[in-house]
């Protein structure tokens, strides 16, 4: 089996969100960059677990981004990826990124492409599904469990009001979320080994961006909390009924 795991670089979850240049750009000063949690904790770790069960498995990593993505790629190699490919271009939109990844996926004839459920900055939930359509293979989204038996996977996915288990044969694309695996921390051996693992840099292929960012805004500040005394919960219920008209 040959896997391709998508890695996106996102701001740390504690980042204070602010914008600059007349609200047209995300203010990146002082931002700590991490591997998108869905990619690291779930997609990557599950791919590595499957490799641990079947050592013949090859796990390649892919990231569309400039040189500043190398630290997160090295971390993913330390966690257990075999080799990484970086497409040397700043992503312009989901379709642009998906086209770059689909190109690499086609050339490498991978059996499974792993993506995260979504990036925690853009929240597109788009790249995985786009890659699948570009490769014309099945897409199983929002996986919470993932078992592989030969070339057949059984994948549990969250649906509204419950769960569904799907069976699908390779090749396919899967997007992963909580449940698929448990977060891991790289060990010393992994970190040392990662330094010498191949990180291949390839140039972009021609692709269109179908959308573009115009500007950002922050949600309006809250007016402030109205506190109700603890010994009068009925007052809270009255406010929710009469003032907020929600119950």
């Amino acid at each position: 089996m040959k896997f391709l795991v998508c890695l996106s670089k996102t701001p740390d979850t504690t980042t204070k969100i602010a914008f600059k240049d007349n609200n047209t750009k995300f203010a990146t000063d002082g931002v700590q960059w991490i591997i998108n949690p869905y990619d690291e904790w779930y997609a990557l770790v599950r791919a590595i677990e499957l490799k641990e069960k079947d050592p013949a498995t090859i796990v390649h990593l892919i990231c569309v981004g400039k040189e500043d993505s190398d630290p997160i790629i090295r971390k993913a190699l330390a966690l257990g990826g075999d080799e990484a490919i970086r497409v040397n271009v700043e992503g312009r939109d989901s379709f642009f990124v998906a086209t770059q990844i689909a190109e690499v996926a086609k050339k490498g004839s991978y059996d499974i492409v792993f993506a995260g459920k979504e990036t925690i900055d853009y929240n597109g939930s788009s790249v995985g599904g786009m890659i699948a359509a570009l490769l014309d293979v099945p897409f199983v989204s929002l996986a919470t469990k993932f078992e592989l038996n030969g070339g057949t996977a059984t994948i549990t996915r969250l649906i509204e009001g419950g769960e569904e288990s799907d069976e699908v044969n390779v090749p396919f694309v899967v997007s992963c979320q909580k449940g698929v695996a448990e977060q891991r921390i790289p060990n010393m051996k992994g970190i040392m080994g990662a330094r010498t693992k191949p990180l291949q840099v390839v140039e972009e292929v021609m692709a269109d961006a179908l959308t573009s960012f115009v500007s950002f805004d922050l949600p309006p500040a809250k007016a402030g909390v109205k506190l109700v005394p603890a010994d009068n919960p009925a007052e809270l219920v009255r406010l929710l009924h009469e003032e907020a008209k929600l119950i």
Partner: protein
Amino acid sequence: MSVLVFLDHAEGKIKKTSLEALSYGADLALMLGLSVNGVLLGTVSDDLGELGKFGAKKIYQLAKDALNQLDVQQYVRLLAEIVKSLDAKVIIFSNNVSGKALAPGLSAKLKAGLVSGAVKLPDISNGFVVKKSVFSGKAFANVAIKTEIKIIALNPNSYKISEKGGSASVEGLAIEDGMPRTKVVATTKASGEVPLTEAEIVVSGGRGLKGPENWGMIEELAHLLHAATACSRPVADAHWRPHNEHVGQTGIAIAPNLYIAIGISGAIQHLAGVNRSKVIVVINKDPEAPFFKAADYGIVGDAFEVVPGIIEAVKHLHSTS
């Protein structure tokens, strides 16, 4: 030329989130001077003509039972053909589980720009700019779609369902469907009564509740308010509650009308998934809990005393109104 709304369904019923998408599509069509139609793959027991109430002129249906299970690859191929044959210019999905699976594929197939997580009607004064939620609800981005065909996936509970009156005609579609490549082998229902992403009210518990045995009062309050139940991440990690209740930046993002947080501190990663809620109520014994800064109403007090009091007051309200 038209606006086409994807009608998602389960167990024979059109989903509420699709009615939101239809209401959104109808208002968008009005702005653009187009008509709005719906497309449904599979079969339902609902009367499709009734969808005219929400503004739909025509409902196109590919009425095959085999399509009642979502096979993304096949659905995307069928939808791409349908969009082309109907000359649809804007396609609206709900950004729910099905929408997240389908809209990106359709976008790539048609090379039609997609904005997912839309929260408002587009601004068409200068191009076609859609406001969407980013940074897990901590900000909004205004995104321009540059292609002729446009796709929007509307966040659940972001647009009001509105009835406009009228009735729709139903037209069958004749397109060959193929063998599904993904086979559904089992489905299980969640324990809660109301699906979390569709809920208008959510009652949520955190580590302050001490253990799974104390969730009875959370469930009782949720039941009384016809609400869904949710929890913070450590609660799901400790298996006090199922994973599908975990809300926040790395869990499910929700935007109910009312979010009641009980014994949750309000960490930035938790807030990220819930701060689009219209009204937030916080019950926490620590007056310094960060959640109070994001709250509309609050009680500083012990959940084990306050929540039973709220339950009594809601019962009283129901018995008097």
